[in-house]
């Protein structure tokens, strides 16, 4: 790549971002973060040199933007290959594909995520609504500004943690580093940058929307599990009733035929069908949610 060598940290980061164009946004965020940590530490370690002087030797120490970009790309491929579970053999038959979902760990983790999301949704929603309203209330006082900044800072940490959770549950790459703090400058220019950053607001939106989404996910997961499980175990209860170990006389069944002996295998089959569908739905929701989280929580290059 033949272009002028970067003369400032900002130029270096911009070139690195260009070199990584088209890569996963989470990978770009990590690479920019690492490069900035190094470059700023290097500048701070040599107060007698100008930023331009330091950037001149960076290509031979840290590496030129294209070399660094290549290192991230190579490592990412290796890590992905080492860390992701091997691709399952695709079952040929339709039935094989339908029931193959039970051997996919992502389906189980997504189901767990759906149940957990009610708890996280309540925490995120409460945190965001309380943080926003207290910030608004304190806005007229001097303490309002630091309080608001603290609130935004915690929201960013939560967004990183949520990203790690989603990556663990769905395997979709999410940032491993907090977002790049942006161009350096005075305290106020950083504050202004944070307020005008679209991601700051989309993160808050995500945290608020986690409550309704969490409720929906939780209901789908719990209703799906209980209904399918009760259908699957219905034959046991039915048989126990017919043998006389258990009496369901007091239980009113409607329609009447549900209690009949011949209906039990059908109830069992229906339960298995429902449970398998739930696994598919969970896996789908996991994927959709990861894409949605990425759009709101991770900055696009």
């Amino acid at each position, binding site marked *: 790549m033949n272009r002028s060598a970067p003369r400032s940290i900002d130029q270096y980061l911009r070139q690195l971002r260009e070199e990584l164009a088209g890569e996963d946004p989470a990978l770009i965020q990590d690479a920019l973060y690492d490069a*900035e940590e190094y470059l700023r530490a290097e500048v701070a370690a040599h107060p007698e040199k100008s930023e331009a002087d330091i950037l001149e030797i960076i290509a031979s120490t840290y590496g030129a933007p294209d*070399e660094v970009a290549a290192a991230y790309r190579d490592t990412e491929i290796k890590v992905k290959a*080492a860390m992701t579970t091997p691709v399952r053999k695709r079952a040929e038959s339709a039935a094989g594909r339908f029931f193959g979902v039970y051997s996919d760990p992502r389906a189980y983790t997504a189901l767990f995520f759906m149940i957990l999301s009610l708890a996280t949704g309540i925490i995120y929603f409460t945190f965001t609504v309380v943080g926003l309203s207290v910030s608004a209330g304190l806005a007229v006082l001097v303490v309002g500004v630091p309080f608001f900044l603290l609130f935004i800072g915690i929201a960013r940490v939560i967004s990183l943690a949520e990203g790690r959770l989603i990556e663990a549950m769905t395997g979709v790459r999410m940032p491993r580093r907090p977002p790049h703090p942006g161009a350096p400058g005075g305290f106020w220019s950083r504050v202004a940058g944070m307020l005008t950053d679209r991601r700051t607001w989309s993160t808050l939106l995500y945290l608020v929307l986690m409550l309704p989404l969490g409720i929906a996910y939780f209901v789908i997961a719990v209703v799906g599990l209980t209904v399918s499980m009760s259908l699957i175990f219905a034959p046991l209860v039915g048989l126990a009733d017919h043998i006389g170990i258990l009496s369901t006389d007091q239980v009113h069944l409607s329609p009447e035929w549900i209690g009949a002996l011949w209906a039990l295998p059908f109830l069992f089959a229906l339960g298995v069908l429902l449970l398998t569908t739930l696994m598919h739905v969970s896996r789908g929701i996991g994927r959709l949610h990861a894409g949605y989280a990425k759009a709101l929580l991770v900055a696009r290059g």
Partner: protein
Amino acid sequence: MDDSDTKKFQKDLNGGLVSLVLLAVLDRSAEDLYGYEIAKRLASANDGAPIFKEGTIYPVLRALSAGGLLTSRIVPSYSGPPRRYYRITEEGRAVLAEWKAVWQSTRGFVDRFID
């Protein structure tokens, strides 16, 4: 010999060696280290032509950390973004011991032919 051929040979060699060296550095260090510190330790040990660019150790640190061989914590910094400090885990020490043995036998084998 073309210079770019030499570079490519060096790059191929470095594949696993960077991980080995990083684990060894963190194993020897009494305190946790962050990326820049590790890079500078390697640079000072290696005067003359650098074996690898300092920028290439960061993605490897992340990979080792994702593999459970290192743990990390974030500490705020005045000079830039918060720093990530790394420390070797017990699993990392076990892997390092194995890799050391592999490296020693490889080196002995290669030396028998080129010395």
